[in-house]
């Protein structure tokens, strides 16, 4: 989505307020700012309110509603995405901070016709019921399995503690992650 910059931020510089430290030229102050970023391999340029969180940007501006919003304070993990390859909470980042970043959301995993092995493992092990928490679990697990291709159950439980699920009781999710690790190791479908 390419939007033209509307009012090009309020570029009121702090020097205007206080000329004493004029030696250092200061960065501008923004209320709206143009950002460029790649999401699931696609380049986007957009002008955003600086107070818009990254998760709201993904959902409302880009229409990528696979990433869910639960608590908006970092606890539930529903909004987990990959930022430059690392799993992070997209409710605790502002879209402006993602300028120049590479983002992967659940839409970047598989397609309905060809699920990612991780998604297949979740389906096969009944690792979801309502599915609200699932995108977050998938993205947390994706990053985790890249770093730990052969995780112990202990490690799986530890990483999953970062995401909440109100339906499954977690056992199915743990089974799915264990199985997904195996599928990914054997190169199946990847």
């Amino acid at each position: 989505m390419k939007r033209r910059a509307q009012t090009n931020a309020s570029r009121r510089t702090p020097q205007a307020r206080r000329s004493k430290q004029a030696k250092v030229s200061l960065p501008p102050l923004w209320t709206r700012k143009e950002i460029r970023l790649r999401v699931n391999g696609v380049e986007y340029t957009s002008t955003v309110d600086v107070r818009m969180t990254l998760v709201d940007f993904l959902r409302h501006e880009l229409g990528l509603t696979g990433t869910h919003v639960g608590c908006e304070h970092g606890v539930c993990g529903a909004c987990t995405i990959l930022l430059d390859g690392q799993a992070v909470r997209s409710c605790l980042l502002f879209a402006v901070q993602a300028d120049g970043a590479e983002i992967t959301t659940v839409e970047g995993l598989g397609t309905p016709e060809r699920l990612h092995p991780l998604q297949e493992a979740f389906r096969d092990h009944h690792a979801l019921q309502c599915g609200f928490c699932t995108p977050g679990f998938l993205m947390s697990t994706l990053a985790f399995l890249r770093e730990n291709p052969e995780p112990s159950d202990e490690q799986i439980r530890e990483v999953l503690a970062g995401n909440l699920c109100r339906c499954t009781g977690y056992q199915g999710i743990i089974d799915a992650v264990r199985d997904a690790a195996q599928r990914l190791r054997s190169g199946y479908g990847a």
Partner: protein
Amino acid sequence: MKPAPFQYTAPETVEESLVLLHTFREEGKPLAGGQSLVPLLNMRLARPSVLIDLNRVRELSYIHDEDATVSIGAMTRQRAVELSSLVREKLPLLAEAVRYIGHPQIRNRGTVGGSLAHADPAAELPVVTLVLGAQLVVRGLEGTRVLRPEEFFVSFLQTALAPEELLVEVRFPVHRTYGTAFLEVARRHGDYALVGVAAMVQMDGERCTEARLGFTGVGPVPVRLPEAEEAATGRPLDDSTLGEIARIVAARLDPHSDIHASATYRKEVAGILAGRALRLAAERFKQREGA
């Protein structure tokens, strides 16, 4: 909820950040990993006019080996500390404690400086700086101050930082010659500690020659208990010594009650954890001596 409107700026150097902080003072707020600040913004418990994003200040992100100390820049991610082999080798207590902070998804963003500046009473890093006697380097436009943890942590979520100052670095003394252990009890892995204990010991055979004990989650700031440390010194860390230490800990600590645990429970747990941590630290000391 959504944050109240603010203006955003992204300096690239410490100098620029300091001038910005100086310009806006109470109206400005540094944004580090955002793992504590953004929840407060989203819930509108914090409403700064200007958010000064430190994430592009590259010069604040480093882990430097300086022989007797390891200096860590304020914007170093907690995850980078966790994965650093230098930290594991030279700062084992920090390496062990950092893994208790939230979850990997939190530590990927959360910073060392942010955790200390936020000063949550149940956080892990403040008590680690306290038992290690780390130095906190604070910069303002007027100059640099080097503070001890006892000076830096003032009260519940309060530090000695002035609004126009930045915490820029933490200098951790290398502690390879100690046996160390960090233990905590929380409802789930990754939750804030109900009680956390950091222990350091040196041993001569079965006899403990030096002990340090620090606690988190049991008061507004992290605490050391010299009386409990003395009770360990010069004695074997057997059941009778550890029993006495547990009694001192329960008597001296003054934790609060909340929905997670009562004060009485916290005291009890603190005493028992202190014993376990001392014992584990002593075991590790012996292993290293033997190696």
